[in-house]
């Protein structure tokens, strides 16, 4: 069991490190007389964020929506595709190289193509997020479906289980830890994907735009503290995503999986 988080006073080391980093920040800024349009002080960032709170909240919702839709699409399609590839070795051998190819193609290149096909805005952002999240889900889940203990498979043979029964009762539950690991990686990438998509393919509608687009706006207006605040907000969005998947991981695996039962095995 990870005892660190259970110990009372465990917040002290990270708090101390945070205080150290903050004083370094202020110290460097004061010592080298760095102006706020190059490096704003933390309190200026907070203040700018508060001042821009309505815009930022709206942009987080826009980006969050794109990230969530792209993430869910990647998880759903990724799971199904892995499932199909686990069913058939020839199918896997045939398609896996192309999935890999898709992953190797930089999103920066794909984004304008998506804009061409889907137009500026949400659909293109979702597509970019999907592209970024898809591969870790497929790679991990496929691995989960194929790494089934040989003895367990023989147990099913002995019980004269059908192929379908083997999948439902053995392969799918056995693949869950891998699937959730893929989802965790995808969850860290989803906000980044949506912000990137937003940056490359976003637009402002009724004065509302996503985080990626707002960075362009703030930069062009030289609202540098607000630009930094945008980063802070993006970071919070990432934590929300990872927290959500961690919760799911806990709900699904807490009863039986080694990662949750406190066993080292």
């Amino acid at each position, binding site marked *: 069991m990870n005892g660190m988080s259970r110990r009372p006073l465990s917040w002290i080391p990270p708090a101390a490190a945070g205080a150290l980093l903050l004083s370094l920040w202020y110290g460097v800024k004061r010592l080298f007389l760095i102006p706020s349009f190059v490096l704003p002080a933390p309190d200026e960032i907070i203040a700018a964020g508060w001042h821009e709170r309505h815009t930022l909240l709206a942009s987080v919702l826009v980006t969050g929506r794109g990230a969530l839709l792209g993430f869910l699409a990647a998880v759903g399609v990724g799971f199904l595709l892995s499932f199909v590839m686990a069913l058939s070795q020839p199918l896997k051998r045939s398609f896996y190289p192309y999935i890999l190819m898709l992953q190797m193609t930089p999103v920066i290149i794909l984004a304008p193509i998506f804009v061409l096909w889907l137009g500026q805005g949400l659909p293109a952002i979702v597509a970019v997020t999907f592209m970024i999240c898809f591969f870790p889900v497929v790679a991990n889940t496929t691995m989960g479906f194929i790494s089934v*203990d040989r*003895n*367990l498979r*023989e*147990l*099913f*043979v*002995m*019980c*004269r*289980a059908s192929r379908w*029964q083997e999948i439902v*009762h*053995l392969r799918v*539950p*056995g693949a*869950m830890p891998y699937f959730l690991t893929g989802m965790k990686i995808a969850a860290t990438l989803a906000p980044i994907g949506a912000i990137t998509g937003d940056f490359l393919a976003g637009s402002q509608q009724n004065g509302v735009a996503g985080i990626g687009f707002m960075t362009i706006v703030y930069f062009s207006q030289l609202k540098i503290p607000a630009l930094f605040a945008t980063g802070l907000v993006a970071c919070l969005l990432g934590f929300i995503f990872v927290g959500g998947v961690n919760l799911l991981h806990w709900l699904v695996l807490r*009863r*039986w*999986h*080694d990662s949750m*039962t406190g*066993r080292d095995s």
Partner: protein
Amino acid sequence: MLAGAPMVSLRSSSLVRLDRVGKSFGNGPPVLAGIDLAAAAGDFVAFLGPSGCGKSTLLRLIAGLTPATAGEIEVAGRPPEQARGESFLVFQDPNLLPWRRVAANVELPLELRGEARAGRRERVRQMLDLVGLHDAADRFPWQLSGGMRMRVSIARALSVAPRLLLLDEPFGALDEITRDRLNEDLLAIRQHDPFTAFFVTHSVAEAVFLSNRIVVLAPNPGRIAAEIPVPFPYPRLPELREAPSYLAVLADVAKALRAVLP
């Protein structure tokens, strides 16, 4: 009637019959060669031999998990792959599904057979009572000791009431006290629920305590070197372990085993 009926050979009074059975993997040397063996219903046959003599392979052939490359095997008058419902192999490792609770693990073979839920539940309850684990029904495998996990594995195998139970060193990973206890319990279960057993082990004492026949295997290729009857009637009590007649058989078997060691 006679013309259309499947051939029932006269020899099929034996539940298991092996006729010049051999096994090799790929182009490698044979792992097993010329195995002749017949076991009647109710036999408890122990297989003893040094590592690498093909004991586990022999069980896997009989379980129909891998085909023999020579000779012929019959279980309940059928080839082993078709007799899978009649036989069940208990692995060295308890081999439980970690995401299923104890009761659901025991239920698995019945579920895969498509049996009705109510009947399944009742059978699971009986099996857990039989192996002394009714209090652990709702636990997960990781919450059990090694001995308890093995009991679950045995309960799961017995849930389908196989006529032939194949056990591949089931207690090999357990300490001696737990192992003795499980040996006694296995015999007690068999009093209640008679099955024919093939039991692979490295332990001479375990083989003598459990079986009525001990088959000693020699390696390279795996073959039957000796067969020793164990004359003690069932039910057997733990005190048998101190009886001079038991110790005499133990010595005989140890001697036979020493003869096949390189």
